[in-house]
């Protein structure tokens, strides 16, 4: 059977739904609103090339306080295929970035939720993000960051098969160019290290047959 089949398109959605870019790393200013578009996903083989899955979502954020931001998002690609997927969360800045090399520390807690419009199957996954970010240029807001993301999956698998894998980590390195109105971010991510990625029609590019690299872009407008 041909190895390169459109079945991978079926499954890109499945995988990508679990692979958003990091929503918000650095809190918004108090009462500030941000609206963003996110693109990208795990890198897979397709027609002889290695491409990031073209996943997309719309995100919003609101600065409850200078160190506390509410955020959410809706997955556009999932919606196209009949699954409404959204996330809601809150990000708190634990340590402000200091002069020199001491980074800021923020922690985000959110839930990814999804329901399909055909059978109304529902899933909800807790997500925890820990971010370190550096404002490395005086008088500028640009920063780069590292992220440790954690998905938790407590749902039984098909046919009532017990779920023995409850934790799905990811690690990201990103950079954000920021000015008064905009944030532009590029992020590289390593998703689910230690988890085998073979034996399926979708060929992901990870390390030694495990996990997948991912690339993401986001553009955010602040109001």
């Amino acid at each position: 059977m041909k190895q390169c089949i459109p079945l991978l398109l079926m499954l890109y959605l499945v995988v990508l739904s679990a692979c958003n870019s990091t929503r918000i790393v650095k809190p918004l200013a108090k009462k500030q609103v941000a609206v963003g578009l996110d693109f990208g996903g795990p890198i897979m083989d397709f027609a002889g090339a290695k491409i990031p899955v073209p996943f997309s979502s719309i995100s919003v954020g609101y600065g409850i306080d200078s160190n506390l931001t509410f955020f959410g998002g809706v997955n556009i690609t999932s919606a196209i295929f009949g699954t409404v997927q959204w996330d809601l969360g809150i990000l708190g800045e634990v340590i402000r970035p200091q002069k020199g090399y001491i980074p800021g520390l923020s922690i985000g807690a959110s839930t990814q939720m999804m329901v399909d419009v055909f059978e109304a199957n529902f899933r909800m996954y807790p997500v925890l993000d820990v971010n370190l970010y550096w404002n490395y240029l005086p008088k500028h807001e640009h920063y780069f960051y590292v992220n440790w993301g954690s998905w938790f999956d407590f749902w039984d698998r098909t046919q009532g098969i017990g779920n023995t894998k409850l934790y799905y980590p990811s690690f990201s390195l990103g950079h954000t160019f920021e000015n008064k109105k905009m944030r532009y971010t590029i992020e590289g991510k390593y998703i689910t290290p230690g988890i085998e990625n073979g034996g399926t029609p979708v060929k992901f590019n990870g390390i030694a047959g495990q996990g997948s690299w991912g690339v993401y872009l986001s553009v955010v407008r602040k109001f």
Partner: protein
Amino acid sequence: MKNIGFLLLFLTITLTGCRLDNFLFNPATVTEYKFDAFEEEQRFVLDSSYAISESLIDLMTLESGPEDDRETIYAAYIGDQSRISQDTIILYCHGNAGHLDYYWERAKLLANAGGKNRFGVFFMDYRGYGKSTGKATEAGLYYDVDACMKWLKAQGLTDDRLVIYGFSLGGAPSTELTANPRTLTPSKLILEAPFASFEFMAQDIAKIAFAGSFYGNLEIDNSVEIQKVQQPFMWMHGTADDFVGIHHGELIQQNYQGTHKVIRRVQGGEHSTVPIVMGFDIYMKLVADFITGEI
């Protein structure tokens, strides 16, 4: 903000017509079947010792499906049609890619199992594949394989001499029509490199336990349907299958609740290479022995 709300509403309500079901099928069309003269790249090409006399090859068309979903499918019978009322027949259901020409060499292997033309072999292009009309669907798979059973029955085949063999996607109609018979009830079921279910595959790739309905409406679930099968069952799967991992087949064979099960985990076998890695002679003997009840 209002505009964004409307945009989200629009996306959610108006764009939900897309489903991923169709991506399960990867048909190739053709204007003419060539069989031995087919020159495109194949997994293997048999030597002349496996040749089948042209007088024993019959390409035909069949009408398949109910009136509101009827298509003309192409099928090929290898063997002496006048002996269908006496012979044992292997009904071969191919995988999700290609068309009859791609599976011709495999069909010839089966036609040589147990000796040349020991068993009749019948295989078909599902709707949308090869020269068959229409578009591949899950329901269409079942209609098309059942259409072949109708033809075989009309030639005098009875349940006890029908063996159904499903490769990869072909495992779906094979299992379904053995578990829930329509025209004929296969007496034995052979599955090579089957996938467990649509949802199992989705979760297998996503790793996370998403619902299959997030992505499609396919109801294919071989690992559940196999529980209804009491007929003798043989399963073959390559341990190095990187397309449909062997754990798919393992789940199916574990769920089989009949009393006669033959298992072959083929060390180093990939998705399409089980007969090659096993060795053609061993493969053909295995199939023949299973059909004749030697194993």
